[in-house]
């Protein structure tokens, strides 16, 4: 018996210690928040059991016996109370079904009766520790064990649902261990002079009721007989303390194992979560790297496209390049570009890019696909054969039999007007994402820019040709045509003089004809020089002007000088450079035709006007100047002024008869054009004086 009490105390002490240590560790086990009550229960049980162990071997009536009796009388109800609290908390861990709220209503009457009955028992003569022992079992231990048992069974269910089979099994074991303990510890009580224990044999109550030292009892009847220590001993051959020891070991085993297994499982889960987190981090990093590389590729592609556009590459080549790059970067199987025809009557497939080829479609084939038409109306669309099996996506791919699984279509828009569509298609199930659509729209913008640029270039070229033709025609009309007309008159005059035989007059007329031919020759040469002088990337503006001036000097015999004060090529826009050259040529033509100058100076320098930088071109001759009665129109001054105006520049002419002419032309640099409002510039320029 001593050993049994010792082992019983050891089991509960172990349970208390294990719970205490687990509580200190701060386990995340749902059970762990109630471990302090389990600790208290285990320790109180151990103390009670060890008190019993010493009581077995102590003489009755001694101080030690009294002390031990007091100890167990205090700790036994306490242990029951701790167990009741633990069981109650455990049960409430998992939300109870709503109907359980009525359980207090069901329990209140029987509970009141049991309490009343317990109260009446205390007035029945018997040692005080007997009713305390009995009623601490009935009122605390029994409900506490039942609540804990049910609580563990509920935890078993929850852990099983979570897939924590190991912990679930142990919870199940602990639940049944507690339910078994409810019977063994909560119901079987020592002999007492009242029901339900064996009250009818009073002697047993007095003689070591707890330890069954007086087994000479045989009268039992009814259910209450089974709740007696002696009956358990007679039926099983083992004292109740043995069975209690077994239940205590079972409870301790299942709980300690459950705590242990839970921690192991938890650690395993944590490790798994950490691994998953690391993998996720790595994936995220790789994703970022890939995204950055993709973005770099896209940026590079966009830069290349723009470079090709500004280099006036062939628009068809640019479009094919855009399609090729889009297909590669979007990892699609097909990219198509369709544009409306000239009359905007029909959408025609312009070019395609596939894994095998990229080419213009000649002649353009009409696109009848309803999905494309619908996407053009809506702006853009992501299509998938999965989401809408009725969509006929096969029409999206020209000349392919493969069925399109996924597609993205973007409308091409120029100045708010749809001009066509760009679409990407995949033959396998790989969805077109929103990011893909953003990039596709970006490429569609590039397509529009390329087309718009090509149109503008074409228009500019036409305009330039028209202007050049007009200028040549004007020059021929002003120069060569008049001279040829004059020559025609001279030939008629010579013919008349020849018939009259007037040799002297004929010689005079021939001399005039020779001068006129000389003038015509100079005009023609100048025109040829002008036509030859073009701006190119190979030759800078300054070099072209210097070369032109040099040729002008040779042809006209006028001395020239060229001063270039800029440190590098002037930062002018292309159109400004063209206008500058034209003003320069017109000015030199005036010098040749009208100034009778022997020397002309050209100077290129920097100038400041307000907040802007300008290039100042000064052309100064030592000729006769502009005479009274001559108008600016005669010298093409109006044209030169208009040229300067058109690029935001200023033209100023200073001239006095006999003192030569000076033309100052200020043309804005690119930075100035950015910062200055051209409207403001025009307004300020209109007040600029022109000295004639």
């Amino acid at each position, binding site marked *: 018996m001593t050993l049994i009490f010792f082992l019983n105390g050891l089991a509960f002490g172990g349970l208390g210690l294990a719970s205490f240590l687990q509580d200190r560790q701060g386990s995340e086990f749902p059970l762990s928040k109630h471990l302090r009550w389990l600790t208290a229960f285990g320790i109180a049980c151990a103390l009670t059991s060890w008190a019993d162990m010493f009581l077995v071997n102590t003489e009755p009536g001694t101080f030690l016996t009294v002390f031990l009796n007091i100890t167990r009388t205090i700790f036994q109800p306490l242990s029951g109370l701790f167990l009741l609290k633990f069981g109650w908390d455990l049960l409430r861990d998992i939300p109870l079904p709503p109907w359980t*709220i009525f359980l*207090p*209503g069901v329990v209140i*009457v029987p509970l009141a*009766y049991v309490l009343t009955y317990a*109260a009446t028992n205390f007035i029945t003569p018997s040692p005080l520790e007997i009713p305390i022992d009995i009623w601490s079992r009935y009122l605390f231990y029994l409900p506490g064990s039942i609540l804990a048992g049910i609580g563990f069974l509920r935890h078993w269910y929850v852990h099983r649902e979570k897939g924590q089979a190991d912990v679930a099994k142990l919870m199940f074991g602990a639940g049944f261990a507690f339910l078994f303990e409810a019977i063994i510890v909560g119901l079987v009580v020592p002999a007492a002079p009242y029901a*339900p224990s064996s009250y009818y044999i009073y002697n047993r109550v007095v003689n070591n009721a707890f330890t069954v030292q007086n087994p000479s009892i045989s009268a039992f009847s009814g259910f209450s007989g089974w709740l007696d220590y002696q009956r358990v001993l007679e039926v099983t051959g083992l004292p109740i303390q043995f069975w209690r020891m077994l239940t205590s070991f079972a409870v301790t085993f299942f709980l300690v194992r459950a705590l242990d297994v839970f921690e192991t499982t938890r650690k395993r889960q944590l490790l798994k979560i950490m691994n998953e987190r690391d993998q996720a981090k790595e994936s995220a990093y790789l994703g970022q790297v890939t995204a950055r590389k993709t973005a770099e590729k896209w940026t590079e592609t966009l830069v290349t496209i723009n470079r090709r556009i500004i280099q006036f590459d062939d628009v068809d080549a640019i479009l094919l390049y855009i399609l090729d790059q889009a297909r590669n970067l979007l990892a699609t199987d097909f990219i198509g570009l369709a544009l409306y025809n000239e009359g905007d009557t029909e959408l025609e497939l312009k070019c395609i890019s596939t894994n095998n080829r990229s080419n213009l479609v000649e002649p353009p084939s009409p696109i009848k696909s309803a999905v494309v038409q619908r996407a053009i109306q809506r702006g853009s669309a992501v299509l998938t054969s999965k989401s809408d099996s009725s969509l006929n996506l096969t029409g999206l791919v020209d000349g392919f039999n493969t069925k399109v699984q996924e597609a993205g279509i973007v409308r091409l828009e120029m100045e708010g007007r749809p001009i066509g569509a760009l679409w990407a298609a995949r033959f396998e199930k790989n969805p077109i994402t929103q990011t893909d659509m953003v990039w596709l729209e970006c490429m569609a913008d590039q397509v529009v820019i390329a087309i718009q640029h090509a149109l503008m270039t074409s228009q500019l070229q036409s305009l330039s040709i028209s202007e050049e033709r007009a200028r040549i025609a004007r020059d021929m009309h002003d120069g060569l045509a008049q001279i040829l007309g004059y020559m025609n008159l001279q030939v008629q005059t010579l013919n008349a003089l020849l018939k009259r035989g007037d040799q002297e007059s004929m010689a005079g007329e021939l001399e005039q004809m020779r001068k006129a031919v000389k003038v015509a020759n100079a005009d023609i040469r100048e025109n040829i020089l002008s036509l030859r002088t073009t701006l190119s990337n190979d030759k800078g503006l300054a070099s072209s002007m210097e070369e032109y001036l040099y040729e002008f000097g040779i042809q006209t015999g006028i001395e020239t000088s060229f001063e270039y004060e800029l440190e590098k090529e002037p930062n002018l826009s292309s159109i400004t450079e063209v206008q500058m050259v034209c003003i320069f040529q017109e000015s030199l033509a005036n010098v040749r035709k009208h100034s009778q100058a022997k020397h002309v100076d050209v100077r290129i320098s920097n100038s400041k006007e307000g907040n802007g930088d300008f290039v100042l071109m000064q052309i100064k001759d030592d000729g006769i100047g502009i005479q009274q009665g001559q108008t600016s129109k005669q010298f093409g001054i109006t044209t030169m002024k208009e040229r300067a105006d058109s690029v935001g520049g200023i033209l100023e002419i200073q001239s006095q008869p006999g003192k030569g002419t000076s033309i100052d032309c200020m043309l804005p640099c690119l930075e100035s054009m950015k910062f200055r409002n051209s409207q403001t510039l025009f307004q300020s320029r209109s007040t600029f004086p022109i000295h004639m």
Partner: protein
Amino acid sequence: MNIREWTLPVYTILTQLSTGALLFIMIIRLLRRKTLSQEDIDYSTQIPILIIFITVILAIGFAHLHLSKPFLSFTALRNLATSWLSRELFFNLIYILLIGALSGALWFYKGHFTLKTILGWLAILAGFGTEYCMARIYMIPSQPAWNTFLTPLSFFFTTLILGVMTVPVLMMMDLIFKKSLSLEKTSIHIRQVTSSLNWLSILAIIFSICMSILIFYQTAILFGGSPAAQTSLLLLTEIYKPLFILRLLLMFIGTGWLGITSIQYYRGKILVENLLTHVFTACLLVLVAEILGRFLFYAIHVKVGI
């Protein structure tokens, strides 16, 4: 008393508890007529009345456990003209039928508010009739401790005190149940609890004071009574003195607890969700006190003669 004898107090206490609870629920129904619709009143009382009905069934079931031949209990009805026991059983049957009809009407028939009210008050009358007959059974000349007008009076006060203590428990269980199901109209229950708790707790304290006056008056009667009565008094003041004191203490603690809970609730220191624990504990203490009182009632009786 042995275990079998304990079933009789279970019956009497449960019957008193159910009658008292029904009485105060019917009063609440009456008081709420101005502020709630008839439908809402029915809705908020159907579960408490169902519980009362189940309690009554359990009570009669327990009563059968102390009989040697439970299946022949109906034969007790044959002596209706002469026996208080037959009359008790008769009234009890009517009480069960009426309360069952009321509960059924609340669950299965909308409207008919007046009919339900009539059924409820008739059931209360039948309940009090049962209790009067129950008390008359004990008023026999050979038992001086029981044979006074105080016996039916104490039975009625037990009914009242258990009623006022039980109704808050029923209302709170109903409220929490409906809240947990996220049902609408829980505000009706909260209003009902809020408006009823104060006067119920005041009544509980008044009834407990009345009950203690009755108890001491009975003690005084026993003191001046026959030798048998004085023997009963001796039992009460000597052997059963701890239980006697405990009974009074528990009654005052229980009703006081309800009063303090009510005050704390109105001060906002107790949330409505936590009320159940307090009203349940208070009710349990008073119930234990009343069962102890019933135990003492049986324990101190001393027969005159053989």
